């Protein structure tokens, strides 16, 4: 008999699991959509979707919740990717939610549209009657996310109830909901930040340039480097300086910090991440710093 141990590498196991999840959603839901922000996780998720249905096109639209405070580089990347895939993109705009009076713009130095996104997202889900929404969240990102199911049930109000989650056994996912409810689906649940980068390297996936080291005008706040930009309110004392940075996560400019780094290639980024002693959200996200359970609270309201 031929000797083969039929082992599967960790990236292949994670990819196979994610593909299975995507196909399950395509088979069981009527109107799924995939949240695509142009960030690394959603880029990987999109590649998995391409693989899951090949040679057929991806059988659902993409959606981006646009705060209007995004990095232009990322928006260009988003549009290019959508065009290449010939996909349909729904843009849900926080500015429109503000204009329609659904939410009120925050004011002051720390004003951010991060929290407002939840309303925009939930309104869009309702308007388009999406019943399943793919998100690129990973359990290694944050302690509340570490608790979430792959198929995460949301009630009529888009709320997550962490104390009453559906049991989820083997690879059997319960897709049953009533009208108005939906399921958030996280195919990358079991991936770590390092897995994402290893996969980007292995697959040769293109990513927006802000992930690589570049020179940028920034200022320091709470130990984070925020971009100097019209949309980020800044005090006189917060001095702008130029330095070499890259982004570890891509989100709203007002609450996403850059890290000082010279990593200019994917290989260098992997070496940097493998050695880092700080989590990606800890290093770069002001939104998680407001309280111990900030993410849990936002998720309960319907956040990503």
């Amino acid at each position: 008999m031929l000797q083969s141990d039929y082992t599967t590498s960790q990236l292949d196991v994670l990819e196979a699991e994610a593909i299975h999840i995507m196909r399950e959603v395509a088979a069981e839901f009527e109107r799924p959509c995939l949240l695509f922000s142009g960030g690394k996780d959603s880029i990987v998720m999109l590649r998995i979707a391409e693989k899951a249905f090949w040679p057929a096109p991806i059988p659902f639209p993409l959606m981006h919740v646009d705060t209007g405070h995004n990095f232009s580089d990322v928006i260009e990347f988003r549009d290019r990717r959508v065009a290449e895939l010939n996909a349909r993109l729904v843009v849900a705009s926080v500015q429109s939610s503000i204009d329609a009076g659904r939410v009120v713009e925050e004011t002051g130095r720390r004003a951010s549209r991060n929290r407002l996104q939840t309303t925009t997202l939930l309104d869009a889900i309702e308007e388009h009657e999406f019943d399943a929404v793919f998100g690129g969240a990973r359990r290694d990102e944050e302690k509340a996310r570490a608790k979430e199911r792959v198929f995460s049930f949301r009630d009529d109000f888009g709320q997550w109830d962490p104390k009453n989650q559906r049991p989820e056994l083997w690879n059997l996912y319960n897709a049953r909901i009533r009208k108005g409810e939906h399921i958030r689906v996280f195919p990358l649940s079991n991936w770590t930040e390092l897995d994402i980068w290893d996969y980007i390297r292995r697959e040769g996936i293109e990513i927006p340039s802000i992930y690589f080291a570049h020179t940028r005008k920034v200022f320091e706040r709470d130990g984070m480097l925020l971009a100097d930009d019209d949309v980020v309110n800044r005090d006189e004392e917060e001095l702008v300086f130029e330095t070499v940075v890259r982004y570890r996560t891509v989100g709203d400019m007002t609450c996403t910090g850059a890290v000082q780094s010279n990593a200019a290639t994917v290989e260098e980024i992997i070496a940097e991440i493998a050695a880092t002693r700080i989590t990606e959200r800890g290093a770069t996200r002001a939104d998680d710093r407001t309280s111990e359970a900030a993410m849990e609270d936002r998720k309960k309201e319907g956040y990503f």
Partner: protein
Amino acid sequence: MDILRFATAGSVDDGKSTLIGRLLFDSKAIFEDQLEAVERTSRDRGTEYTDLSLLTDGLRAEREQGITIDVAYRYFATPKRKFIIADTPGHIQYTRNMVTGASTADLAIVLIDARKGVVEQSRRHAFLTTLLRVPHLVLAVNKMDLVDYSQERFEEIREEFTSFAAKLNVSDLTFIPISALHGDNVVSRSENMPWYQGTSLLHHLEHLHIASDRNLVDVRFPVQYVIRPQRATDPAFHDYRGYAGQVAGGVLKPGDEVMHLPSGLTTRVAAIDTFDGPLEEAFAPMSVTLRLEDDIDISRGDMICRPNNQPQVAQDLDAMVCWMSDNMKLGPRSKLVIKHTTRTARALVRDLHYRLDVNTLHRDESAPALGLNEIGRVSLRVTQPLFVDDYARNRLTGGFILIDEATNGTVGAGMIVDAR
């Protein structure tokens, strides 16, 4: 590098979350900001040491009550392996979350408090892990620091558990004395227990052989999704018809003779397609797309297998069911939705044979119904044939979930023991 999935189990406060925290901490998988946050919270609450259980107990309610409510998934890697950890709750009320975490585990660590010994919940969880056929079991006798690292106490517990385990189906059982709080025998061998000759827990996890746990014999390919790219831009794909799914058992190769169920028609595998090109073979847990030589009417929920090795085609199932609903009981005449592989049907409970007492493993044949967290053997009649194997032979084709049609909640986990 391969992946080992493991779950913790055991009674409340036996130290599961602390152990995971310790494992992550000592293997340097904790980041500075996570540690600072945990230190801050420990200080705020007046705990004199850093409470490592806070690394996994991430929900507000868990921190308020000091217990685990739902599974936390954590990840770490050593040069040997990547690990996916499911830290499960010990409280009986949250048994369903423990079952969620253990269902996919290659190994379970059942913790026992060295002072208390084997208690009912340790037995329940040990039983559940064997019912779920977690292939490897570690019995970690924890809090050895509180019993003066006594070999005698360890041996007592080992004996007590061994006699209970004799009644269970345990294929691989290892005992390790540890202190999760102080790190004895967690990542490295403890100097406090020179009498212990075995390896540390991490060493055991790194070196365990798991490749042979998978079923590579019985070809099982539940059809998940039919790929028909009618609007493909490439005309070469205009007539493409592929059957997508995740291999649940066996090894498939192009040219293999295969059988389609329910039709019973046979054909051959024309190709195993993926986005990255065709494959020479496919096995679990790969997600692939099969093309077949003949045009057969195949849809989601069907099964592809080998003509000389077929699953049971069954509408009558006997299964062990773990019941997980808090507002409804499972008894004769209960009607539910059943999801098995990629097939969904309706099921009627014909009979409840017995309810198990997890403490004694006594079978109570007079039990009228199963309540929350109870386990029993039932007979089900299903509205459509399912393609099943005994759960002991294949976790993926032998397991199913039950869904309450009224609430859409997942209320039962079933493991097939017999089918007709």
